[in-house]
């Protein structure tokens, strides 16, 4: 097997051929590089937080610095890593390839969205290096509008701009999936990854503008000293929370839905089976996206929100549990009587299911009104959303990166190291965050730079876990880069997977396919026979 002579990576050299590219695959790589940098910045901040919490008084830094650390950690990880992660990297790379198209519908908008992302991240970094923001990633008013002396404005502007990057990505995906599918590729033959990205795009389109206008209003209120959230004028601080969470709760589904899509690709491939209950998995993605918009008020159970609204939001929140449960059961059932291989992507997928299950089940605790009153704004919530966003979304992201790495780079990574990294991350993650559930129910509030001494043992366990987790995240960085030069050539379909993206060489040519493919069968049409294509 030799590398195809002409592919998207060698189609042009030099900075210009990258910075002015409209090739969705190259834009995906630009995103990959940007968000990887930001991930390690956010990770370093998390490391500092964990070290600081080793002692009850705070080991390293004082209150002011600590508040900036956790705020910047949250902002960078959420807005500049998790939200773009799978959609902008894997989605950009795969959406046209999975539907047999030459590119997205609007390639220049796609490039623009990357530039917006870079512009937004630069503003965030400017805000960070000039002193950072200390409002918490939630920007609650009136602290963010009136009382904080930190650099809220550049950060809000950065998020505003990055929001438009998300909007353009979502718009591009929806239009592309609607109008550019290959002949024969009906909606119910689409890979489930595309269903999940479609659902994600709905959230980008309908949710992002609301956070954009909300943060713009916060910015204006800071500039002019008056505004609609000002309690002195009769402004309602709880209104800000409504507008903020209208986007920011669905944003959690922006993070988890694409990861669910990735897992729905990986499991059939390594179990050599069609996914169990295709249409249930597909529709549950859409159901999660839609229901996800109806539950934001569960962040406001103790905020002074009307208790009747609280009950409505609690009820609706429980309903979201159902499509999530359907997905987990269907993935599990897919394994039944499969032919299961334990390649790295599959290990990540198992890790995803395990951690997402715990994250999802603890979601029931925080959706439940009376229990949430106790655990709201404690480490219980911190642990819960890390199980979803890190245990779920990041595991899915890494699983996807490993699954499609041969396609992206044309090379195979060292399998033993990769399996080790999956195990290390899984163990490190649980050691980091499981103790935080206990801390939370004990009553340890979040965003504390110092804490009562009886919580120390659990904090030390958590910090120990985070060290392991940090090493786990560094491992793929090293061996994936190594594989670019030394990895074995992958060939077009190293996993023996179905799906159009595997029908074209690795790395793919610029126009994705030599001939527009025609689709004649359902997704995941694994014959059951193990084709020994494994290298």
């Amino acid at each position, binding site marked *: 097997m030799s590398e195809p002579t002409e592919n998207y990576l060698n189609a042009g050299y030099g900075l210009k051929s990258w910075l002015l590219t409209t090739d969705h695959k190259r834009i995906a790589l630009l995103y990959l590089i940007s968000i990887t940098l930001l991930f390690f910045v956010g990770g370093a901040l998390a490391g500092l937080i964990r070290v600081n919490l080793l002692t009850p008084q705070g080991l390293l830094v004082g209150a002011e610095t600590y508040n900036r650390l956790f705020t910047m950690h949250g902002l960078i990880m959420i807005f500049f890593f998790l939200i773009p992660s799978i959609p902008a990297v894997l989605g950009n790379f795969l959406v046209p390839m999975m539907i047999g198209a030459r590119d997205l519908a609007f390639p220049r908008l796609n490039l623009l969205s990357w530039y917006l992302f870079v512009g937004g991240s630069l503003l965030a970094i400017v805000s960070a290096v000039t002193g950072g923001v200390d409002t918490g990633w939630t920007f609650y008013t009136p602290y963010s509008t009136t009382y904080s002396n930190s650099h809220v404005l550049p950060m809000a502007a950065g998020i505003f701009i990055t929001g438009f990057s998300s909007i353009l990505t979502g718009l591009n995906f929806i239009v592309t999936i609607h109008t550019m599918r290959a002949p024969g590729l009906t909606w119910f033959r689409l890979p489930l990854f595309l269903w999940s990205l479609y659902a994600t795009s709905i959230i980008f389109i309908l949710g992002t503008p609301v956070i954009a206008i909300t943060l713009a209003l916060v910015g204006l209120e800071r500039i002019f000293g008056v505004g609609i959230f000002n309690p002195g004028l009769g402004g309602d601080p709880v*209104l800000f929370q*409504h507008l903020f969470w209208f986007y920011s709760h669905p944003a959690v589904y922006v993070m988890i839905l694409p990861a669910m899509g990735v897992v729905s690709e990986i499991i059939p491939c390594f179990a050599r089976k069609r996914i169990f209950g295709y249409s249930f998995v597909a529709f549950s993605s859409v159901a999660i996206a839609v229901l996800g918009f109806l539950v934001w*008020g569960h962040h406001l159970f103790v905020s*002074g929100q*009307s208790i*009747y*609204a609280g009950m409505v*939001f609690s009820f609706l929140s429980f309903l979201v549990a159902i499509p999530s449960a359907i997905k987990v059961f269907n993935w599990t059932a897919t394994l039944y009587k499969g032919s299961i291989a334990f390649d790295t992507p599959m290990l990540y997928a198992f890790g995803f299911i395990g951690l997402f299950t715990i994250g999802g089940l603890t979601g029931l605790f925080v959706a439940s009104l009376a229990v949430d009153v106790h655990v709201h704004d404690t480490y219980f919530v911190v642990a819960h959303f890390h199980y979803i966003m890190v245990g779920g979304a990041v595991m899915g992201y890494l699983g996807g990166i490993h699954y499609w790495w041969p396609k992206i780079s044309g090379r195979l990574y060292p399998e033993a190291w990769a399996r080790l990294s999956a195990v290390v991350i899984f163990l490190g993650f649980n050691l980091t965050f499981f103790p935080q559930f206990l801390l939370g129910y004990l009553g340890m509030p979040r965003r504390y730079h110092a804490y009562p001494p009886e919580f120390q043992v659990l904090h030390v366990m958590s910090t120990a876990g985070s060290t392991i987790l940090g090493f786990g995240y560094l491992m793929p960085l090293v061996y994936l880069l190594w594989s670019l030069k030394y990895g074995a050539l992958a060939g077009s379909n190293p996993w023996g997977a179905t799906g159009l993206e595997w029908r074209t060489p690795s790395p793919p040519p610029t126009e994705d396919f030599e001939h527009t493919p025609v689709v004649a069968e359902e997704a995941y049409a694994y014959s059951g026979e193990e084709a020994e294509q494994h290298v």
Partner: protein
Amino acid sequence: MTPHVLSLRKYFGVYAALIVLTVGTVAIASLDLGRLNVVFALTIAAAKAGLVGLFFMHLLYTSHRTKIMAVAGLVWLAILIALTLSDVLTRGWLPVSGQL
């Protein structure tokens, strides 16, 4: 691709209707109808928006999926406003002795 061309008559007819409705909304606002004032104002605005959307923006003649998109935007706006108001309007419901 053959475009769907609407007659000039239709365009001018819609225009005339829009102007009439604008005058109408000012006129009705000057009557004291209590709570109905806001209902009329929004109904007329919705009617005008409908005319612009259906004819000027050709919504009447586009694909179903475009119509669904437009409706989705309105539905989500309604969700945002309705669920937010579900909090604001019910805050005072608890009796005073147990005022939250």
